[in-house]
């Protein structure tokens, strides 16, 4: 009996240890198997608020806002030939573009605007997706832009200039001689090799879904098929992939581009449901399919890394088109819901939702008020030298200029090219009778410019390790968090 007791105790002890180890392992492998990184290109804090008001009302929340961890991201870039922050030759560039920002989270370095997968001195830096691929994880890249566009390309290519997209090389679009010592690089150098050529041959992403078929040609199709990709549609014949093609892609490596250029604006598809463009898959559909393809891998225990970009938020913000921007925010947020639904069931997935930069100085002004651009005597924006908050405005009392404010630009003032008034939109809180473009609509939206701004951008996260992001972080830190979570640190 003593032996039985001893063995039983041993077994119990072993079981206890195993139980503890299992729990620890679960915590450890639940550390993370998968990372889904979603970004709304150009999506600043106001974009999120405007999307919330529009679709869920003031007291509602977008899906991304329902995630438990909230932080914010500093987005600045650096100038050409700059060192990294802390280096003696560090020279910041306060407003980033999509290329520099995407390189920051993809490769963990600050770089100059227009650079992809290289640091500010032109040195190639590996990307998180390349590291994941090398480590045997499955990888995916989804975008509503051309897949050679800056954000998706930053994970899958290394070029001195984002304009070097293909299908052809040109010196003007590919060379950046002030980063390469004043001399052009040989065209065999990867840094001047068009992005499309790289994507089609380096196998970095197992699942590639988006737009940009015009960037690829017959040689690219052959190269993709040679690596085992199932190519939806045909770059050789310039036949775009279809929703049915996507549905029939059930496993393995998949390359599908659904438009020759960027994917079609969501608002256009909604308003033209019988158009050919309306047959393009939506971003939530692409996201769901990508997750399905990546998760069913035979190498499942190694997990996957998926990047999803809602690109058209930025593109329509550049154009100061709030109506289209709002619908792109909604489409992106619906893709977030797809990712989070998967993560909740999977329990081993970190979901990160953020942006690369803010675009166009999007603003929400109080209903019935006006912007400085509409003012006859706008505030001077200069130090008046007064010791207290008691000065009289240097330009006199602020007043609306009737010549510059002729009604909502998407309503009564739409025909006036010199009208600076806001666009107005009904929200989920408004009575059904309220129309977009009406002064009665609650959401009044304005833009400062047609360009990027230097605002910090929002950050939301869900899943294991997400608490690391409850902070104000550099965009380069996102690389550390992703590679750390997947245990693929360089």
């Amino acid at each position, binding site marked *: 009996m003593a032996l039985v007791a001893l063995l039983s105790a041993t077994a119990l002890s*072993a079981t206890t240890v195993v139980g503890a180890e299992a729990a620890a392992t679960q915590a450890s492998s639940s550390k993370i198997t998968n990372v889904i990184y979603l970004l709304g290109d150009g999506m600043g804090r106001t974009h999120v608020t405007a999307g919330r008001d529009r679709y869920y009302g003031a007291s509602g929340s977008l899906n991304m806002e329902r995630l438990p961890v909230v932080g914010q991201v500093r987005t600045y870039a650096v100038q050409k030939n700059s060192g990294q922050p802390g280096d003696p030759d560090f020279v910041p560039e306060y407003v980033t573009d999509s290329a520099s920002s995407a390189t920051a989270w993809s490769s963990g370095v600050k770089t100059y605007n227009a650079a992809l997968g290289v640091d500010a001195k032109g040195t190639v830096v590996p990307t998180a997706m390349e590291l994941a691929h090398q480590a045997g994880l499955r990888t995916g890249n989804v975008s509503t832009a051309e897949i050679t566009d800056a954000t998706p390309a930053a994970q899958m290519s290394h070029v001195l200039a984002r304009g070097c997209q293909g299908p052809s090389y040109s010196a003007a*679009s590919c060379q950046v001689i002030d980063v390469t010592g004043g001399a052009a690089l040989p065209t*065999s150098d990867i840094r001047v090799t068009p992005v499309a050529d790289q994507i089609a041959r380096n*196998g970095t992403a197992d699942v590639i879904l988006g737009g940009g078929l015009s960037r690829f040609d017959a040689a690219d199709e052959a190269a993709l098929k040679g690596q085992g990709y199932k190519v939806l549609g045909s770059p050789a014949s310039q036949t775009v992939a279809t929703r049915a093609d996507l549905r029939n892609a059930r496993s393995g490596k998949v390359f599908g581009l659904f438009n020759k*250029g960027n994917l079609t604006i969501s608002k256009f598809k909604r308003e033209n449901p019988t158009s050919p463009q309306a047959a393009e898959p939506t971003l939530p559909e692409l996201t769901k399919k990508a997750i399905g393809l990546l998760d069913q891998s035979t190498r499942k225990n190694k997990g996957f890394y998926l990047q999803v970009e809602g690109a058209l938020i930025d593109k329509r913000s550049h154009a*100061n088109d709030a109506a289209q921007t709002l619908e792109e925010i909604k489409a992106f947020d619906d893709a977030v819901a797809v990712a989070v639904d998967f993560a909740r069931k999977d329990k081993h997935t970190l979901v990160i939702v953020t942006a690369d930069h803010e675009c166009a100085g999007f603003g929400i002004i109080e209903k019935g008020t006006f912007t400085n651009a509409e003012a006859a005597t706008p505030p001077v924006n200069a130090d008046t030298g007064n010791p207290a908050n008691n000065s009289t405005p240097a330009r006199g009392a602020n007043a609306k200029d009737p010549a510059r404010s002729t009604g909502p630009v998407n309503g009564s003032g739409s025909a006036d090219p010199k009208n600076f008034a806001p666009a107005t939109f009904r929200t989920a809180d408004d009575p059904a009778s309220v129309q977009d473009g009406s002064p009665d609509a609650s959401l009044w939206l304005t833009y400062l410019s047609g360009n990027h701004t230097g605002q910090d951008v929002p950050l939301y996260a869900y899943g294991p390790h997400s608490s690391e992001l409850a902070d104000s972080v550099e965009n380069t830190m996102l690389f550390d968090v992703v590679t750390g979570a997947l245990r*693929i640190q360089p």
Partner: protein
Amino acid sequence: MSRTRTLLAAGLAVVVVLVSLGAWWLARDPTPTTDSASAARTSLVGLPAATGEPELASLDTLHPQPGQVVEAAGPFDDRFDLTGLSLTDRAVSGRVLVTSDVSDLLELQVLAGFYDSSGALIGTGRWDYHLDEATASPHDGQTPDEHRVFRIAVPADLAGRAVAAAVGVPVLVNE
């Protein structure tokens, strides 16, 4: 009894071993280490390096009549309109109106083929637009401009012989 104890002990030992193996299996790190130096593919097998500026195969198939300026097919023809095409003895010129989404016009190259009086292609010239984001503000702070006016000089060695032209776009990066 002794045999029973032996069997029990053996059975428990097996259990301990199996449980330990299971624990090892669960505890192992499934992710192999990475080598950052080799992770980035810096050479692409089977991809010939570009030998120069891009060409348009369509230029070889065209035979414009003297005085004509025609359009040459390229990869981005669904993204722009060419207007105001004209040819003098010195240059071919015109305007590109980018019709697809334009939040930035980053790169544009217009390629012109020049033809003799028999309609034979005798040479080319090109015009480049490049936005240097690091030194220039895109669209000068304004919303995007979809128009670009181009002028491509007739190469000196074709002077007097170039009597027709074709124009196409091999490089266009707009987003």
